[in-house]
């Protein structure tokens, strides 16, 4: 019996030893780290099978004809609405039977009325949206069933469903009243702002994935730029004195750091923009006229730690991605101390952020590749929609009950489109 006891103890020791070695191997120099946000480890979730989406068949004047009029809509940063439509048409989550659908999608391209310069004019968008909703409410019973509570819309414009590029006007307009019960999938996100509804899903702006892929440089190229930024500091055309554009934050960056050798900042448009980002440790992502920008997507793809200077901003997929651990958040009032803030981050924290950024699922979640790949932004949107299921009983209205008023909203929006 003594011998058996010693054998047992020996086995225990051996087991402990082996476990220790495994643990040691795991912790030893990993180059990426798992991402888990407040919703858990959900970036790699597969939404297929967890929800069903019904796509309304709208006449082509709402989508195809608009795109035909201007093909530039496919390349600008608001192109997510078009690609989402295409993705849903051929996705396994699509169902042709609306009775079994959990969510309803209305493909209306509201951000495709472009100026000669390529910027979208939002003046007809409320009318377009209204007209689309009128169509679906009269041809299908599903809108009236819930007054849109199980419908979702993509509104990637500057201030989402407020449909204006100027913030004060957008706040004045507020979210289109007809969309008050629907889920909005938008790029704009700012806490306590009129244009961000409770329950909206924030998505990254569209950035062309192939273009970024072609500009990749070898990963062992040493990162020698400390802080990198290319863009406007003063919008001379609209705000010559400064102080209005970006709430004065970009101008503050320029005035404080224009002669600092650590800050590679300028208004140039170099052809090596993507390559330079891959050689930088920090990339500034300050707000402009709106708090979001494609710089965040570019920084994540190129492994450059984003320094976000936008008070109260809500970043894409904020419940799935722990942005606090990945990027650096600087209050606008702290911009003059930006160099102190960045140099006082301990190197281990910086290396950890870089490891998180190196995670391929992180990069995938920011992209809209064609054809769609697992884990990309399309799937994250579906994951977000799936997390909102099952619908609360209260979304279903009793017959005859009405919550929204058809004539609510600004007079100009009521004109037919």
């Amino acid at each position, binding site marked *: 019996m003594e011998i058996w006891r010693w054998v047992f103890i020996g086995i225990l020791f051996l087991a402990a030893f082996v476990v220790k070695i495994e643990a040691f191997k795991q912790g030893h*120099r990993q*180059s990426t780290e798992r991402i888990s946000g407040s919703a858990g480890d959900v970036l790699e979730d597969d939404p297929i099978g967890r929800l069903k989406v019904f796509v309304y068949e709208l006449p082509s004047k709402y989508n195809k004809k608009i795109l035909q009029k201007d093909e530039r809509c496919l390349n600008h940063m608001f192109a997510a609405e078009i690609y989402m439509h295409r993705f849903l048409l051929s996705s396994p989550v699509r169902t042709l039977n609306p009775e079994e659908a959990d969510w309803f999608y209305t493909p209306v391209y509201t951000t495709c009325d472009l*100026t000669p*310069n390529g*910027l*979208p*004019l939002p*003046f007809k968008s409320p009318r377009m949206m209204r007209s689309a909703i009128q169509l679906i409410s009269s041809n299908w019973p599903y809108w009236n069933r819930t007054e849109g509570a199980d419908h979702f819309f993509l509104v990637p414009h*500057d201030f989402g469903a407020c449909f204006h*590029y*100027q913030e*004060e*006007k957008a*706040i*004045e307009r507020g979210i289109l009243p007809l969309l008050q019960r629907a889920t909005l999938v938008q790029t704009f996100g*700012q806490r*306590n*702002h*009129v244009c961000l509804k409770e329950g909206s899903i924030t998505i990254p702006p569209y950035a062309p994935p192939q273009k970024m892929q072609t500009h990749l440089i070898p*990963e*062992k190229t*040493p*990162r*020698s730029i400390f802080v990198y930024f*290319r*863009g*406007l500091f003063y919008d001379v*055309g*609209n*705000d*010559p*004195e*400064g*102080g*209005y*554009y970006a*709430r004065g934050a970009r101008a503050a960056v320029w*005035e*404080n*750091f224009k*002669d600092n050798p*650590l800050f590679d900042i300028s208004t140039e*448009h170099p052809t090596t923009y993507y390559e330079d980002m891959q050689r930088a*440790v920090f990339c500034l992502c300050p707000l*402009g*006229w*709106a708090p979001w*920008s494609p*710089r965040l997507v570019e920084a994540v793809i190129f492994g450059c730690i984003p320094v976000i200077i936008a*008070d*109260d901003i809500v970043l894409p997929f904020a419940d799935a991605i722990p942005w606090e651990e990945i990027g650096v958040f600087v209050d606008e*009032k702290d911009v*003059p101390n930006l*160099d*102190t803030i960045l*140099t006082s981050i301990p*190197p281990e924290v*910086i*290396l950890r952020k870089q490891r998180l950024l190196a995670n391929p699922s992180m990069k995938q979640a920011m992209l809209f590749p064609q054809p769609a790949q697992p884990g990309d932004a399309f799937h994250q949107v579906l994951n977000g929609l799936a997390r909102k299921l099952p619908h609360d009983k209260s979304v279903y209205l009793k017959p005859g009950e009405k919550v929204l008023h058809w004539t609510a909203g600004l007079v*100009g929006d009521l004109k037919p489109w």
Partner: protein
Amino acid sequence: MKLSALPQSYLNRRSNSFRSPGPLDSSSDSAVKSPATIFWLILHGLCCLISLVLGFRFSRLVFFFLFSTSSTNFYTAPFRSTAELAKTLDVHSVLSTKPVSNLELPLLNKTATNSRVVVGRHGIRIRPWPHPNPIEVMKAHKIIERVQKEQRLQFGVKDPSTIIVVTPTYVRTFQALHLTGVMHSLMLVPYDVVWILVEAGGISNETASLIAKSGLKTIHVGFNQRMPNSWDERNKLESKMRLRALRIVREKKLDGIVMFADDSNMHSMELFDEIQNVKWFGAVSVGILATLANTDESADQKKDKEENPRMPIQGPACNVSNMLAGWHTFNTLPFAGKSAVYIDDRATVLPRKLEWSGFVFNSRLLWKDGGDKPEWIKDIDMLHGDIESPLGLVKDPSVVEPLGSCGRQVLLWWLRVEARADSKFPPRWIIDPPLDITVPSKRTPWPDAPPELPANDKPVMGIQEPIVKHTTKTRTSRSKRRSKRKHETRTDTQASTRHSEQN
């Protein structure tokens, strides 16, 4: 990368060109003319008139002060706005931005519910001394170093080997120039380096003092033959010296990758990363800078240059499937008969068929005991004569591994530049004793200046004491100076840099 900032740019343009959206937009806002709107309009018109008189935009400043909320920063705002306002004497800008300012005034206070973020004009915050802080800069550099170290660990070479560098050298005018270059390159290499210096003519103090500050692990041996004066002989002696170094590697059983860094070559940092990939015996492409050494014959060679402008390369040549197919060597035909024979000639110095510096190999190939050495390597002690290139060490040249993406990357450059026979450079590059020449000030007429020079010598005395002893001699030695002027123009400029205040 234009932000959505740009939508604003067409607000102004809209009022001119896009008529149709214009009325639509304004119709929702100012269709109803309330008394408040009229009041603001009148007040703003008044302020515009005042601005016309004053010459700067007065209205914005007043309203900013009256209506700014707590989120704006006062101490910078007055500086910014008055500075900008003083600059904008442009009356047109006042009138054209009327539509914008009309909107912003009543809305300056309108905040979103419970938000601390305020829409409207904010001050531009500038700290009291907006310049780089050297402590922060140093900290940032430390961070960058740490990040780069991590990058090397992750993406660079795993388990890097020591690099054993073999350099034959000898004391001559340009030794300091060349050896310092190689030394600095080796100091930057992120791997362990063992530097074996073989010096012709025995160990000398000059060489030793040059390499003393490198901080590298060096093995400095002397070779007891003096360096001959012709290139042929020199190449042969250098081969012997390198073999001597290889014998040291064998004796001391040094473990690593042997490479040959001739002291006048230029090496890129990528070379040291690339040679870590060698398994047994590898070859890299060497760029040949042969024509650089010779400037007089460039006129003749211009025609050749236009036809064949690419730099000649020596190194492995690969076929389509990236296997070693042959060797690129330097074409010596254009230089037949015109190349340098003696080291201090002015003609082009030609490389040999294959330079030693283009080859690297694992030091284990040199070790005595069998081990896992492949059988195609010859033993150094069994060599009958001297070998012209390391290919003489292998029995079958096809085993050589082409490095640098199969020879497509040129990772080092070969150059042979030595001082001309008629050059005069101070030994050890030290001017000793100091020059006894003073350069007269620009203001005095040059060169036959009247004897006021001693007055100018007084500031000179502050700079260098030994010169003081010689100043009294200037008057007598001036005649000598003039005759020596041709040769000493160089030394004159050296003296003038010392007497910088006179220049």
